[in-house]
C-alpha cells in the first residue's frame, strides 16, 4: 500500500468515527415523549414519510421544480454510485468491472457531475438562493462534484489514483462538519416528520380522501 492509500483509510476512519458520534448522539437523545392521545399509525406514517411523501406527486418542492428535482436525484444517485465504487477501489475489486460497464458508469458519473454543476450554477445565479447560501454550501457542492469526477477519471485511467484519494480524503474529512452531514440527518428528519404526522393521524395521506 502506498501513502495515499493510508491517507484515504485514515480519513475514512476519522470520518466514520465523527459520523458515528453524530448518530450515537441522535440515538441516545431519542424521540420526544408525547403525552397526548395518539390518533394514528406511526409505523405507516414513517414508511409514508420515506416513500410516497417524497414523490414528485406529493411535494411542491419536487413538482414545481422538476428540472432541479431531476438534477438532484441524478446527482445523489451519482454520489451513491461513487461511494459504492469507493469501497470497490479500496478493496481492490474494481478490476472486476468490465470495459462496457466502466463506460456506462463513467457516462452516468459525467451526467451526475453535470447535474451537480447545474445545481451550483443555479445557486450562484438565483437571487433567493444566493442569499440563502454560505461558503459551506459551495464547498460541499464542489467537493462532491470533484469526487464524482475523480471517480469517473480513476475508472478511466487508474494512474489518477493519487488525485482520487486526495479528493476522497478531503470529502471524507469534511463530511461530518458541514452540510454534507445531511447524509445521515436526512433520515432522522424524515423519521421525526413521520412520527409527528403519524401520531396525529395526518399521515399517511391515504387515510383521508383529501
Amino acid at each position, binding site marked *: 500500500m502506498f501513502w495515499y492509500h493510508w491517507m484515504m483509510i485514515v480519513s475514512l476512519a476519522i470520518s466514520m468515527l465523527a459520523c458515528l458520534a453524530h448518530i450515537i448522539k441522535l440515538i441516545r437523545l431519542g424521540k420526544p415523549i408525547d403525552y397526548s392521545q395518539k390518533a394514528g399509525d406511526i409505523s405507516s406514517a414513517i414508511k409514508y414519510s420515506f416513500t410516497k411523501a417524497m414523490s414528485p406527486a406529493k411535494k411542491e418542492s419536487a413538482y414545481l421544480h422538476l428540472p432541479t428535482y431531476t438534477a438532484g436525484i441524478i446527482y445523489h444517485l451519482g454520489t451513491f454510485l461513487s461511494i459504492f465504487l469507493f469501497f470497490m477501489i479500496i478493496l481492490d475489486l474494481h478490476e472486476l468491472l468490465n470495459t462496457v460497464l466502466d463506460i456506462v458508469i463513467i457516462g452516468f458519473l459525467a451526467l451526475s457531475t453535470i447535474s451537480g454543476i447545474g445545481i451550483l450554477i443555479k445557486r450562484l445565479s438565483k437571487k433567493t438562493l444566493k442569499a440563502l447560501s*454560505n461558503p*459551506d454550501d459551495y464547498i460541499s457542492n464542489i467537493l462532491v462534484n470533484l469526487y464524482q469526477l475523480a471517480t469517473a477519471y480513476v475508472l478511466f485511467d487508474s494512474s489518477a489514483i493519487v488525485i482520487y484519494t486526495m479528493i476522497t480524503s478531503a470529502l471524507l474529512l469534511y463530511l461530518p462538519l458541514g452540510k454534507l452531514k445531511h447524509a445521515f440527518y436526512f433520515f432522522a428528519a424524515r423519521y421525526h416528520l413521520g412520527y409527528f404526522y403519524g401520531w396525529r393521524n395526518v399521515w399517511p395521506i391515504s387515510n*383521508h380522501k383529501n
Partner: protein
Amino acid sequence: MGVLTEEIKQRGLEVLSSHGNSKLLTHLNSCVHCGLCSNSCVYYKVDADEHYVPAKKVDIVASIYRRYNTFLGKTLPKLTNARDLDETSIDELVDLLFGSCTMCGRCTLHCSIGVDIGYVVRKGREMLSAMGYVPKTLQATVDAAIETGNNMSISTEEFVDTLKWLEDDLQYELDDENANIPLNEKSKNVMYTLNPREPKFFPLSISAMAKVFYAAKESWTLSTEMYDVTNYAFFSGNMDEANIIAQRMDTEMKNLDATKCVLAECGHGSRAYKWEGPNYLGRKLPYEVTTSVELLAQYIRDGRIKLDPERLSEVVTLHDPCNLARSGGVIEEQRYILSHVTKNFVEMTPHGVDNFCCGGGGGQLAMSEYNERRMKIAKVKADQIKSTGASIVATPCHNCVDQLTQIDQHYKLGVKIMTLAELVADALVLDEEKK
C-alpha cells in the same frame, strides 16, 4: 426591550442547546438550503423576497445554534454563516419568526428533506421569549389571558350577561324553557369551551352550538372560570405561560367533573390543548379531549341530530385551519358535516392538509404591527376563495373567521364567513313539537 446582557443571552441560547430529545438537533442540522420550500409559503408567494423563503427562517435559528454549538461555527463562523446572538440578529429573528411566519407548517409538508420548519420557528420564538423579545402586542394578549382568564379580558359579569340573553333568545326561538346554556354544572358529559371572540364579537355562534347541544340532547356545561380555548403562549413561545393556561383548563375539567373536554372551533386552541397541552403539563389527561368538529360529525353519524341539506341554496366552500387539519389530523370530519348541510359544496384548490393559511395564524391577528403584511399575504386566500365561486366560506376556527372577514372586506369578495356550528344549527331539523 432592554439591554441584551450576557445573562439574557444565555437564557436564549439555552433553548437551542438543551436537547431533551433528538428532534431539535435533527431539524437544525438538516436544511440543505435548496430553497425549494419558497413557493409553499404565502409570504413568498405574494412577495418573492429572499427573506420570506422558509429556509431563511430555519437558517437564522440554525446559524445561531451553529455559532455556539458546532466545531465549524465556533472556529470558522464565516464558513457556515454562524451568527452571533446580538441586537442585530435578534431584530432579524423577531421580524422573520414573528412578523413573517404564520407557523402554518405548509413548508414542512413540502420540504425536500423533511425539516420541520414550523417546529424550528417555534423553538426560535421560544428563544426570543426566554430573552423577553416577544412583540408587545402578542404578549399583551397572553398577559390578558393569564391575568383575567381569557385573552379578551371579558369580565365574568359581562360573560354571564351575554350568555343569559343568548339563553333567553334560544328559549324564545325554540319555544322551550328547557333550552339552556348551562353554567358551571357538575358531572356533565361535555365541558364546552369558547374562543373569547365569540362572547365578544360573535355571540350567535354560541347560541348555534347551544342549539345543536339541545337537539342532540347533550348533557353539557360551560364554565365561567375557564372557557377560553385559546392559548397564545403557544405562539409567543413562553412555555411557562402556556403551561399556566393549559393547567387552568385541566383544573376546571376536574372541578366540574366533566367526562369530555370539547374544544370550540379554534385551530390553534384545539392544537394547543389537545396535542400540546398534555406535553405542557407533562402528563396524560385523564379524560377525553376532542374538537367540536369531531363532535358535530359524531352527532350526525350517530343520528343524534338531523340536518336538511336542501335548506341552503348558496354555494359553500371550506377553509381548513392549518392547526386543525395539517397539524391536527381533522380533515374528513368537516367535509362530512358540510355534506349534510349543503348540496352545493366546492373545494378550494389546494385544500385539506395542503391548504394555504388564511394569514391570520401564528398570532398574526394579535400583532397589529404586521397588519399590512398580513393583509398582503391574504391575497393567496382571497384568490383561492374567488376561484371557487362560493358565496359562503365555512371554517371551523374563529381566528380564521376574523381573518377571512377582513379578507372579504379588503379584497371585496362579497362572501359570508360562517363556522360549522352556525351552518349545522341553520340546517337542524328539530323534533316536530320543538319546531
